[in-house]
């Protein structure tokens, strides 16, 4: 349970990486806005937009929030947060989807 790590393990994310990630985020922003002109249908557009947003979110979490160098325990709690949200979504949809087909009859 004792960790013999150096005093400041997070140090080795360089400035260059931060700038690269920032540029990537801006590019993805432009891409996601541009995607609205591509007609992929309702669900298609939704999935693509969510994918881009997830990539941006991952970039921020891994590099800006230092998850890359974080301990396994911290990553575990990140996974807990999103997994429990998935439980809420999936099981609640099990009710809405089977009520009277899609779109759910509110």
């Amino acid at each position, binding site marked *: 349970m*004792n960790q013999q790590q150096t005093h400041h393990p997070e140090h080795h994310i360089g400035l260059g990486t931060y700038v690269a990630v920032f540029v990537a985020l801006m590019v993805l922003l432009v891409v996601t806005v541009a995607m609205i002109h591509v007609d992929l249908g309702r669900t298609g557009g939704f999935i693509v937009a969510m994918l881009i947003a997830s990539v941006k979110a991952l970039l921020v979490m891994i590099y800006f929030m230092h998850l890359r160098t974080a301990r396994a325990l911290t990553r575990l709690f990140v996974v807990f947060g999103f997994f429990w949200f998935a*439980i*809420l979504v999936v*099981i*609640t949809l099990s*009710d809405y989807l089977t*009520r009277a087909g899609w779109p759910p009859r509110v």
Partner: protein
Amino acid sequence: MNRIATAASEEPSYLGGEHSIKSWLLTKDHKRIAVLYLISVTLFFIVGGIAALLVRLELLTPAGDLLTADGYNRAFTVHGIVMIFFFLIPGIPAVLGNFLIPLMIGARDLAFPRINLLSWYLYIVGGLIAVVTILLGGVDTGWTFYTPYSSVYANGAVVLTGLAAFVAGFSSILTGLNFIVTIHKMRAPGMTWFRLPLFVWAHYATSLIQMLATPVVALAILLVVIERAFGFGIFDPAVGGDPVLFQHLFWFYSHPAVYIMLLPGMGVMSELMAAFSRRRVFGYHIIAFSSLAIAALGFLVWGHHMFVSSQSPYAGLVFSILTMMVAAPSAIKVFNWTATLHKAEVRFDAPMLYALGFLGLFLIGGLTGVMLGTLGLDVHVHDTYFVVAHFHYVMVGAVVMAFLGGLHFWWPKMFGRMYPQLPARISAVLIFIGFNATFFPQFVVGYLGMPRRYWEYVPEFQIYHVMSTMGSFVLGVGYLLPLIYLLWSLRYGEKASENPWDAVGVEWLTPSPPTSHNFHETPTVVWEAYEHEMFPGSEVASGRPAAVPSHSRLAEAD
């Protein structure tokens, strides 16, 4: 017999020091905050108890003659909101958990003492808002705030009550946060995860639920408050809103909340069974993991509150099968507690009587829970007194018994005074009898079809309500007794030794009551959980060298 306790005996106890208002109201000592919580939680228990008494008196007669219909509705709502949000949810974690977790893992305090104090202040602010709304006439929506009644039709102070619950919920999140970080990061050297007392395991699982479930009900109640204040209509079917979505968001929290209340009780139960059987708990690892299993599975079953609420039959199947799965970890715990008594040295002190009371009432509560999780049966008994009896057996029977058992077990450690054993034993038996007399008839009248939250009812149910109200008087006396002799013991009780019950645990190495910094030096744990032979504080091993105080975390035994 050099113990950490003797080395620190000159230091004043956490109660000793200064006694100014500021030293109490701005304390960062987890033990003082636990005492503040104990006082405020007891006061709210009394407020909720009075509301319960009003409800029981009204139900003595089929006609509504004591209170008006609106008065009765507000009384049971006060009973529900105060008992759940201001007694059961904080209850064991905030009082016993706050006091004991740092002591049990050999830490000087919780990870974030200031956030711990903030948690108490949020609880008090929420409590005051709730008291103000009660004085303003309260609300008549029930503690469930079902829409569209709560958001459109109710005429009480729903906005204020919603804010009270929201603030109290945030206090619960902060307590959970504190416990998770403390248990992960501040265990003394040698205190590995599998040497942790099961009390700490249970609170770890509870904190996970507090962190992951409370935000969703905070949002649900916030939406009801916003909808009522601004007329947004998210849950108002007249404008196309979906009232059942509120039920999904509400019960997504409120079923795990049942385990927020129950798991700490199970943690206390494991400690009591181990201490008063004077042996290691049977199947330590299984009990520890079953706490985590309850926390995880507890999130999958909320739909069994909504079987007849226009939820689709398919979803009913999904929730019913998952409810059966969540019953398994609880069954395992009962099996292991029973097996702990095998080849044990059982002593029937007061805490043990509360523990056995817990076991009996939890059995009935748990088994009727399985009945309610069965689809075919729930259609008939949903929203009847059968459900009222079930959740009182688990919430009041099991959890309050565990709270009192834990309070009696750690009272000498918390206040350095021993209470008289005879009245304690009498009150344990009285509560058990009074409880069964109050709530068992409700099972029968529930199956007969008596709906919940009825101000007036049909005459043929009266016999059961009379029995129940008589039982509630016995229960009331049973609850008052501890208040008397425990307060009495504060002044006149005989001084308690460090380990009056000869139990195993780092908290029993500190003086009673402990010093404000818990340990002169952080102890090193060399004994397995509940291992009397290796535990320096127990009589069996007296005369052996005390736990080797180590100066820094890195000097490790193992």
